[in-house]
């Protein structure tokens, strides 16, 4: 079982590995796809952001699947996958802050204020980061005691993340719409099942 968890975690890191290989120019065989293109920082920000939100929603999808199938893997996967998602979002945020904005705090604050979808993304990032931090070994007992609060924060992070994605598209795009629908269904399911329990 532990072996399967490792396999899935590794699979979820493949987009990051490919991105890194492209960044360092180690993918010469794929021609045009071998580097990060004309706007490399944009490629990094978009790729890490997209995979972060995809994996986060996948993490949340495991709950209903486990609820109906009672598969053991569904209990073990959420935490590592959630951390992988945080890893992507952390990269997403850091490459925005340190490279795109040159690490200038004043510039970043002005940019976030001027750009409404950044406020939403920033809030979602803080939610996810706080959950990631309390999942550290030392805070394990607190983490286990407050599972419902934590899943609430993760849901909030996912909703904000999808919103952040949706809000910056110039025209209606398929993926953010699909992710929004998925988030709506997931939140609805969560709401119904948590009512049943209480």
């Amino acid at each position, binding site marked *: 079982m532990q072996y399967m968890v490792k396999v899935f975690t590794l699979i979820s890191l493949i987009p990051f590995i490919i991105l890194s290989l492209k960044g360092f120019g180690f993918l010469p065989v794929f021609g*045009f796809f071998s580097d990060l*293109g*004309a*706007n*490399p*920082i*944009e490629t990094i920000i978009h790729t890490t952001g997209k995979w972060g939100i995809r994996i986060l929603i996948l993490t949340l999808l495991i709950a209903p699947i486990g609820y109906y199938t009672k598969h053991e893997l569904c209990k073990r996967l959420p935490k590592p996958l959630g951390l992988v998602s945080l890893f992507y979002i952390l990269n997403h945020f850091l490459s925005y802050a340190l*490279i*795109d*904005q*040159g690490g200038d705090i004043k510039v970043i604050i*002005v*940019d976030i204020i*001027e*750009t*409404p*979808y950044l406020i939403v993304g920033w809030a979602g990032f803080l939610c996810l980061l706080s959950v990631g931090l309390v999942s550290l070994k030392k805070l394990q007992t607190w983490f286990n005691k407050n599972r419902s609060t934590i899943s609430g924060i993760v849901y909030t992070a996912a909703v904000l993340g999808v919103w952040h994605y949706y*809000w*910056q598209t*110039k*025209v209606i*795009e398929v993926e953010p719409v699909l992710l929004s629908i998925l988030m709506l269904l997931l939140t609805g399911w969560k709401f119904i099942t948590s009512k049943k329990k209480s």
Partner: protein
Amino acid sequence: MSIKKSNTIKSYEITSESIYLERRKLIKSMSIASTMIPWGMTWSQSSKEDGYISAYKRNSIYSTSEPKNSFEDITTYNNFYEFGMGKSDPYQNSANFEPAPWNVKISGEANKTGVYNIDDLIDSNALEERIYRLRCVEAWSMVIPWIGIPLANIIEKLEPNSKAKYVAFETVYRPNEMPGQRKRILKWPYIEALTMAEAMNPLTLIAVGLYGQDLLNQSGAPMRLVVPWKYGFKSIKSINKIHFQESQPKTSWNMAASNEYGFYANVNPEVDHPRWSQSRERRIGNGFFGAKQPTLMFNGYQDEVAHLYQGMNLRKYF
């Protein structure tokens, strides 16, 4: 940077069409005879073989001396939703597009309406290289060495009448060759427009090439508009219709989101897009750690175009 202001558009003497065509044919055959002898038989084929560009002069008055973007950057990083929404989609999906032969339908408030071949509109002897900044509404920018002729040169030939207050352009509609048009990303065909004063401004260009060669499909082959003081979406690609009219035309992005994309769409660092800042831009090709740079009013072309908008509230008419 100071750009010398030129106060006159060199007036184009209108030649009757038949004489004009004869002259073009003669010049073409002369240049072909001198350069393409080894290919013997190919000279009589369509204009695609010999290309639109044989010679051009460099226009240093309107060209920037900033470093140019590489041909690769310019032709692999594009917004051309007719070929898909990704930046590399136009490069990857435009191979089946046929830019030759090419006709342009001229209609509306002008004396010389009708269907013209591209060779009749573009005077290949008047081609110039203009190195312009291009600022996308998405806050990135490039420097591109276009080859083209002033739009004014074409418009004078078409003799618009006094009712012509605006000129509208349409991108060709070919869903078979343009996969993006099979989806309703925008309302197809793509439409853009300028006021007559904007269209006649000497900066406004109809480009047929860049870096000394014909436009590639992803860059808007075979002819496109270039309006360097406006956001990139105004510079409509693969034009096959030009229409002169009295009322303000409905343009594609304005119809898609009128609160975000105005008719004028002048580059303006003080008027933000509702969802993002327009005060800075990323110059493509400046390297991974290259800093963003401040965006200039009218993309740095104030001297040439600010008078067009004198007294206008640019926050209202964005």
